[in-house]
């Protein structure tokens, strides 16, 4: 079991989302960066779709209670408790992990070797915070929340680590975010499609799990920004009458009545999602065939990365001991 001491501003239980209920207005929600969540799970040898704790900006402080807890942090944090990110960790009963702020990117994950004991609702443990559904009472984590862990493995996991630059795709961070045109690209002036792929846009401060509002040159509609409401996908680029694009994300509404000029290619969503407000973003157009080929290649590369995470032999005990000696965080309950 873990106990949340300080959750951070926007920390919630997520998995790959609740699919199959959008026809009734129930959105999937789920992790914002599916790639990083999968890597976090790989660090604790868990299935890629196992539920994780997602945090924004500032990670939680939490304590292991009763039994040792095997977990991993995927996110550029330097925990004040001295625990390293990007590798398998074991917290002993009474030991506290304080993740602290993320540096240079938006979203981090905490994965657990033993699955989180959070109710499954309509086939998923994901929290839809805006709708108040799923996860723990449909809400963000709070101080004092205690979450059980299913005792499936016998512990004694190997310590794996991942190169943060590879996990966060740092080398391609400045590459354009690829877009597939449609479904309402024809409702825009031809110049708007050129502008979107040639001019830089900037993330405003209005970025959350529902969507990221961008600012930049206005994208002009031919006639109107309004349409008969239709379905919205993860990564849909919606443009209301002011011409400023909004990329709709995990907690989007299932349907909406504004034109959507394009959709972000799925394997580029992690690079977009991890940008912080004020960051510049550039877009480029690809065909749907190119997008599907890119997504397939990316999925295969990610599988391979996760399957071949290097081992850090004999380090668990030594590094934890060292960390504890230095920071002196071990305390009785």
């Amino acid at each position, binding site marked *: 079991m873990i106990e949340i001491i300080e959750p951070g501003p926007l920390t919630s239980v997520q998995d790959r989302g609740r*699919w199959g209920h959008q026809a009734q207005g129930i959105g999937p929600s789920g992790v914002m960066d599916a790639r990083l969540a999968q890597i976090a799970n790989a660090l604790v040898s868990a299935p890629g779709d196992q539920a994780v704790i997602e945090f924004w900006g500032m990670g939680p402080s939490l304590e292991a209670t009763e039994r040792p807890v095997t977990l991993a942090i995927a996110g550029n944090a330097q925990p004040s408790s001295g625990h390293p990110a990007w590798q398998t960790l074991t917290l002993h009963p009474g030991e506290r992990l304080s993740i602290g702020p993320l540096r240079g990117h938006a979203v981090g994950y905490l994965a657990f070797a033993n699955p989180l004991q959070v109710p499954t609702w309509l086939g998923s443990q994901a929290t839809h915070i805006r709708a108040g559904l799923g996860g723990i009472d449909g809400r963000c984590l709070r101080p004092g929340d205690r979450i059980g862990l299913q005792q499936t493995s016998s512990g004694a996991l190997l310590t794996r680590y991942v190169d943060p630059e590879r996990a966060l795709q740092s080398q391609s961070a400045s590459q354009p975010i690829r877009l597939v045109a449609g479904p*309402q690209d024809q409702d825009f002036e031809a110049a708007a499609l050129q502008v979107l792929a040639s001019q830089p846009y900037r993330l405003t401060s209005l970025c959350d799990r529902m969507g990221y509002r961008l600012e930049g040159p206005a994208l002009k509609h031919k006639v109107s920004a309004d349409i008969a409401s*239709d379905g*919205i996908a993860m990564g849909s680029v919606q443009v209301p009458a002011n011409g400023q694009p909004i990329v709709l994300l995990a907690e989007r509404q299932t349907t909406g009545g504004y034109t959507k000029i394009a959709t972000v290619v799925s394997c580029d969503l992690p690079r977009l999602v991890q940008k912080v407000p004020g960051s510049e973003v550039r877009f480029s157009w690809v065909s749907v065939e190119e997008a599907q080929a890119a997504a397939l290649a990316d999925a295969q590369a990610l599988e391979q990365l996760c399957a071949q995470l290097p081992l850090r032999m004999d380090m668990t005990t030594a590094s934890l001991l060292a960390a504890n000696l230095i920071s002196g965080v071990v305390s009785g309950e």
Partner: protein
Amino acid sequence: MNTLYHISPVGDQALLLTFGHASDMALDAKANARVMALYQALQDQAPSWLIDLVPSLRALLVYYDAQALSYQGLSAEIEAQLAEQINMSDSQEGRQLCLPVCYDEEFALDLASVAQAKGQSEQAVLDMHQASHFKVYMLGFMPGAPYLGGLDPALSLPRRSTPRAVVPAGSVAIASTMGVIYPKQSPGGWHVLGRCPLTFFDPSNQEAPCLLAPGDFIRFQAISRADYDALLADSSGYKVEVQQAVGEAV
């Protein structure tokens, strides 16, 4: 039936089929009937590549497993299904539901203003509302919230110029050429005519959290305040489904 359609990719993981044009805001019964026919067909077939479906007023969003089926493959599949349905009649099968509504003054927040705007008596407005054959064109906005086509055109009017900060749960409202029901308390700009005591979204019911489904046919029936209170306290005995019927697309 035949309606012009347009197929577009929605990124690499979804496809949108639109009947007519998305910017055509007019409710289109035939377009929606075609959406529902394909939605129901795909739901029944449950092909292995299908991940989720979002039917809406005149479009169907199809989420699919692109590693199992390419965009071109799915487009061809959709076209083949549409060709099969080309000779379908405009009539549609669907559940026929009767929803009880209490139109008492306390609940009918906008009845007087609607009657005034339309130059009708309040009773005439309520008669028209109950005589309208509604169909669930889509659910959205919030879990379980239906957009209902089929409002008597004589009741068509724009939304309130100032939306309400709080519309109570169960409120039955109209605006434009549609009806709506608010499953939960929420802000809203539609004209509220009454309140229904049934539960439209119940997350504790994992089998069927939403009372309504796309394609349902709906009539409203007036109930007294006493019946409203009784149903609000316990609606487990209320039979919402009238009959399995073939309804005309409206």
